[in-house]
């Protein structure tokens, strides 16, 4: 045990002495959360739009007022005819144009059918999509309002309600993703780099020719990064609660437990990578290619898995990050517990055991 503690002490010296890396490790979660929270966002706010109103009657005015009074849109200009639409877009000021057909009010009351055309600037597809959704929802809202007065016998009222993230705050979507990336990075990449550094500098030779048992070396390497990762996870959760007012719906204890599980998954991956890389550079490259990219792209945190081709969808199943993102969203946004997330948790546990077994098998007690 004394040997083991001595080993961990040494690992902490390494981490503390390398001020630059330590600064990055501790600063990165804060920077990423703030970046994702403020800069990269799916929310829309005061988007400039233009109106082309061919009828200019009471109803269109009511709708326009309703849109203008929402905090999402501000009406930049009224244009007179179709030819101006493109010019207006090209000036780059507006993101959408709303076109009311002729005799809007009359058609609506007489024929029960009037149409509005929404043209959006799809050069930024995400925003375009959101804009059209928001406008649609405002229109539906208006429709319900006027239909209250006219009572129809049979009517289906689609009552769309956004739950779990009613304000569509994108930071809530990103927090689980950022957390996953940071934990993966700190746990897997740093562990693999720190083990391969011993190989690169030849100190591994002396460690091997010592009574230290292989598992002691590995656990000793891992412990400091477990602590560092837990610290990072805490910082991320605190930031999302305090700065972005994100509600943690589920049990905090369960969240901590799942975090520790994922940290161990990542660490075992890191150890596995170190067994196949003989220097730091190689460990870093393998970590980036096999861990970071899939975690960012295939975990469903930026790109929805459901819209991927089936082959990629299949691949996402072997990405631990995918399951962790589901778990995090479940706990943080939906407030569900183990009874709903047992399947994902079990998958992560299975993966972790598999990686640990594999790295124990691959870990060499000799140089070959």
């Amino acid at each position: 045990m004394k040997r083991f503690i001595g080993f961990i002490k040494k690992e902490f010296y390494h981490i503390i002495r390398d001020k630059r890396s330590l600064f990055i490790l501790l600063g990165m979660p804060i920077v990423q959360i703030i970046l994702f929270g403020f800069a990269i966002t799916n929310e829309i706010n005061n988007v400039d739009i233009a109106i082309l109103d061919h009828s200019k009657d009471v109803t269109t005015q009511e709708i326009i007022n309703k849109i203008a009074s929402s905090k999402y849109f501000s009406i930049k200009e009224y244009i007179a005819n179709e030819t101006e639409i493109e010019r207006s877009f090209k000036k780059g000021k507006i993101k959408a144009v709303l076109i009311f057909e002729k005799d809007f009010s009359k058609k609506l009351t007489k024929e029960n059918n009037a149409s509005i055309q929404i043209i959006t600037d799809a050069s930024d597809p995400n925003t375009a999509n959101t804009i059209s959704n928001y406008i649609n929802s405002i229109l539906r809202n208006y429709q319900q309002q006027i239909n209250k007065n006219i009572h129809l016998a049979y009517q289906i009222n689609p009552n769309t309600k956004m739950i779990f993230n009613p304000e569509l705050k994108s930071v809530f979507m990103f927090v689980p993703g950022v957390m996953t990336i940071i934990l993966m990075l700190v746990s897997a990449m740093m562990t693999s780099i720190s083990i391969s550094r011993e190989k690169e500098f030849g100190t591994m030779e002396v460690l091997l020719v010592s009574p230290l048992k292989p598992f002691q070396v590995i656990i000793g390497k891992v412990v400091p990064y477990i602590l560092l990762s837990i610290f990072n996870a805490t910082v991320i959760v605190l930031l999302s609660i305090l700065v972005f007012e994100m509600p943690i719906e589920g049990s905090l204890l369960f969240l901590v437990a799942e975090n520790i599980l994922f940290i161990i998954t990542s660490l075992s991956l890191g150890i596995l990578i170190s067994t196949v890389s003989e220097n730091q550079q190689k460990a870093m490259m393998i970590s980036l290619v096999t861990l970071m990219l899939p975690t960012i792209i295939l975990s469903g945190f930026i790109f929805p898995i459901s819209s991927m081709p089936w082959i990629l969808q299949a691949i996402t199943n072997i990405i631990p990050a995918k399951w962790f993102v589901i778990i995090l969203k479940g706990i943080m946004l939906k407030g569900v517990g183990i009874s709903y997330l047992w399947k994902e948790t079990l998958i992560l546990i299975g993966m972790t055991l598999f990686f640990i077994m594999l790295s124990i098998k691959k870990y060499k007690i000799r140089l070959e």
Partner: protein
Amino acid sequence: MGIKAQNISKSFKNVTALKNISFDVKEGELFGLIGPDGAGKSTLFRILTTLLFADKGNATVAGFDVVEDYKNIRKNVGYMPGRFSLYQDLTVEENLEFYATIFGTTIEENYDLIKEIYIQIEPFKKRRAGKLSGGMKQKLALSCALIHKPKVLFLDEPTTGVDPVSRKEFWEMLKRLQQKGITILVSTPYMDEAELCDRIALIQHGKIMQIDTPQEIINHYPKNIYNISAENMHNLIECLNEYEHNYSVYPFGENVHYTDKRDLFNSQELYDFLQSKNLKDVEINNTIPTIEDVFMELTK
């Protein structure tokens, strides 16, 4: 028993690193493996320190088999690899402390053993190992390898790249360690260090060419060696190379070591030949061969 190696062979892919190596090191002996880089010294060290499996052959260290009993060997040997395995970002003291704890001991417990070496670097114990000079790193690495009081000490090229003063001090330290009963296997590319060992093995291209005490190895040198000097060294070498009876011509410091093909060598004849080539201050004297002469003869 210190070390016993029998018919050790080892290949990497299609390169043969060691061919049928056999040798014994007695308990308490200072044994030298002498040979240039790439001779297979490090591979042999790694097999004996249980870091590599041999393809063929077997070996014991301190009585333990290198394959079956590797755990006992790891407890009982000290190993200093070719690159000083120090943690550059740890201080002198932290390095030593770390190696002490992983071997389950403390600096205080075995301080006697390392005292003479460590005392020289102790004033700098708060300095990071990466900021030490070559000679100091070497002393620290030796202290680290000794801190658990090993029965057998493996030193792989401990003096490479170290200046002559530090080298001399290092060998004096080894002699003192030997007196404390530690068996030492040391490798070096410096031929002049051979005579400081009790016994040596000359190794080249993965083969041991000769094993004996340095004196015996020199005694068995088959030829008479002559020290030849002249004012212009370069011309002297060229002339000797032209001389039809020459067997070997090797510069040695300010002289040339010369051997003749014939059993009966007439130095006057060579002297006249060199004179005829306008060489000045020619001197020819019989001299004693060195380990380096033997090594060159064996690899010729």
